[in-house]
């Protein structure tokens, strides 16, 4: 019991540091480690890692609040979609077989790997001129943020509100189902579909992550899926790890680290996908 608690603190610590360095949420690393290395049921891992998501998100929101990048209206409006999706996802997790969850998680890791490679290569943020959406006007979703690099207040409009809302429902579903923050999906919904600039998209996504995770976490908490002996030491480890991670990020060659760990994440993804088919490598 005691060694187990120490192991989970260690796993959380590592996941927190690695997550911060790779720009991933802690949740995405925790589940493969708990299931593949420690051999615990994936349902326990998912419920524990959603707690890790809340821990990291609450920490990050504090930092972003000061930057005035957050679009609170966009966050609250889209949270209707993410929280409903998250509750549904959490309920579905209890109904489907472990193999389905392994398969979906594997697919998610492969997608994250692709995403990280794309970011590593780096794309240029194109000048945007989105088509005005009457829904965005009506819901007053258009906003402005202060850009430090240019020292100017940048105004922006959002478009395709229904598309973004639908994507957010999917992001919430994935979050509840797999115990992840699904930050990548949220940024995709705001940045790619709604054409919101990347900086406010990222800040808004961080806030939404915590609220979305709270929706599925309460389901897991009260239905008994949440195991204190896993979630408690893990949360503490992640909180400390994420703090260390963001501190040492400036000192380490992040790009090289990412190059080293991207194949690791990809390999874990492959392992989980295969486990979904009942094959163990």
């Amino acid at each position, binding site marked *: 019991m005691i060694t187990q608690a120490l192991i989970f603190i260690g796993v959380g610590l590592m996941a927190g540091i690695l997550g911060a360095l790779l720009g991933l949420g802690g949740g995405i690393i925790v589940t493969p480690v708990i299931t593949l290395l420690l051999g615990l049921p994936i349902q326990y891992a998912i419920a524990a890692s959603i707690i890790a998501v*809340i821990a990291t998100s*609450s920490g990050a929101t504090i930092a972003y609040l000061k930057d005035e990048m957050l679009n609170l209206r966009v966050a609250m409006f889209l949270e209707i979609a993410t929280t409903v999706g998250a509750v549904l996802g959490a*309920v579905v997790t209890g109904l489907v077989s472990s193999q389905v969850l392994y398969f979906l998680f594997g697919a998610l890791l492969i997608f994250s790997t692709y995403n990280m490679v794309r970011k590593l290569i780096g794309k240029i943020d194109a000048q945007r001129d989105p088509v005005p959406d009457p829904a965005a006007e009506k819901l007053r979703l258009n906003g402005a943020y202060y850009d430090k690099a240019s020292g100017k207040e940048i105004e922006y409009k959002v478009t395709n509100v229904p598309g973004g809302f639908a994507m957010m429902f999917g992001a919430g579903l994935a979050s509840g189902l797999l115990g992840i923050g699904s930050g990548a999906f949220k940024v995709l919904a705001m940045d790619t579909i709604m054409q919101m600039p990347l900086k406010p998209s990222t800040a808004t996504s961080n806030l939404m992550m915590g609220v979305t995770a709270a929706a599925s976490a*309460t*389901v897991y908490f*009260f239905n008994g899926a949440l195991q204190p*002996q896993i*979630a408690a030491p893990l949360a503490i480890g992640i*909180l400390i790890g994420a703090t260390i991670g963001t501190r040492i990020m400036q000192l380490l060659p992040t790009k090289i680290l990412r190059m080293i760990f991207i194949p690791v994440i990809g390999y874990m993804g492959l392992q989980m996908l295969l486990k979904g088919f009942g094959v163990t490598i």
Partner: protein
Amino acid sequence: MTPEMKKEIDDIEKIIGKIMQIGVLIAAFVIVVGILDLLITGSTGYPIGVHPHAPGTILQGVMQFKSYAIMMLGIFLLILTPVLRVVVSIYAFIKERDRLYTWITTIVLIILIIAMVIGYLG
């Protein structure tokens, strides 16, 4: 939006940030107490494979200083921090006299409460 209103919202945002920071710290502290309790006493306070997950049993366990109950309380406090963020946002929108967003944010809070009920019943 008048400058005074903007300042007031900025102030509210700062308060929210502080509340969340304190919330996370308190939750972490309670969880650490639970873990230390487990490490020192070597007992979860419950039979193997059992942990409390209903409000009544958790509170009862906390009173008896059972390690699992304390951990669950800490985890629950951690879950509450983003919920608190939503509650304070409702207040901020009321202050702004923004009826539409007062409603939208209230709907989010209601969904979160329904989540608790679903978990409790399921």
